[in-house]
């Protein structure tokens, strides 16, 4: 019995070490990136307006990567340490993925409707609708068939 407990504890510690290791990799990637930005980052000279624009666009990317890393760590952490019941876990993973997709569209692809041409936004929304119908329909119909066959 104690042997099993010991094994479990050792296994738990191994997992914790894995996660620490992962966080370490994430932080060091961020640190290297920050260092490179400080060293090689652009310092545009013409006009205060252009500098403000540069800062705004840089801030967008920084917010984007910050949120993206957070929204990655949360679901990976939840799977690594199973604190939630299975249905809650699926819900959390799905929610994080959808929010992260939106973060990428907004901060990396700069889909930002009020300030730009909206054709691309319409294209993305229409494609999402098509995907919802095709993927949702496939899962619904074939899933239903599969349960009837068993």
């Amino acid at each position: 019995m104690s042997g099993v407990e010991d094994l479990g504890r050792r296994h738990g510690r191994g997992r914790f070490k894995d996660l620490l290791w992962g966080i370490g990799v994430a932080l060091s990637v961020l640190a290297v990136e920050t260092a490179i930005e400080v060293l090689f980052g652009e310092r545009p000279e013409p006009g205060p307006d252009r500098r403000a624009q540069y800062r705004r666009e840089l801030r967008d990317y920084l917010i984007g990567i910050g949120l993206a890393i957070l929204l990655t760590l949360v679901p990976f952490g939840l799977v690594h340490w199973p604190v939630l019941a299975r249905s809650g876990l699926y819900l959390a993973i799905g929610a994080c993925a959808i929010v992260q997709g939106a973060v990428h569209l907004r901060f990396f692809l700069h889909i930002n409707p009020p300030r730009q041409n909206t054709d691309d936004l319409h294209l993305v929304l229409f494609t999402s609708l098509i995907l919802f119908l095709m993927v949702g329909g496939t899962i619904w119909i074939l899933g239903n068939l599969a349960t009837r066959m068993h």
Partner: protein
Amino acid sequence: MSIATILKHPGINLDTEPREDRVKAEELLFGFWVFVMSDAVVFGVLFGTYIIMDHARAGGPGPAELYDIKSAFIETLALLSSSFTYGMASLSLKYGTSRVPLVLWLCLTLVLAAVFLGFESHDFISMFQKGGPPTRSGYLSAFFALVPLHGLHVTSASIWMIMLIVQMTVYGVDRDVKLGLLRLGILWHFLDIVWIAIFSVIYLGGLA
């Protein structure tokens, strides 16, 4: 909202360029968005197939035996960081006065893509060794139709990036290079979004 009234496409706008170049950018980038969205449909339908096939294991190994969460986590971080470094390259393209930081950011992006592809091929090889080749079950066929397709996209995008760097060093940062970099940026960030779906549905969903 015609091109004449609003010359602001989504993404980094090169707003100091001559007007005719910006009209051209608008057209090319919209066309590229159409391509990327058709690609999204391909990936989406393969996701549907995977979800349906998830239980078609034919007595073969499943996610718990085949996937490695640590490897998936490193791949995710590499790809996320590469999206950020590509963003920094875009900013260098727009605001930079020399091409040195632009090339450095692009090279860093390539290194991160290589890390991603290295870990991913290692994953595939270890899946083969654990008795999970695509021919083993419907579930594995669906897996190997979807995930390596994304890897193939990352590989092609990396080759495109190398070609742009070569073009840039030979001809300088001219209009064609700039428009190429803007389009590659859309593809790069899009592939990151596809990866979010892959790690959430396949890796985390499979191991949860």
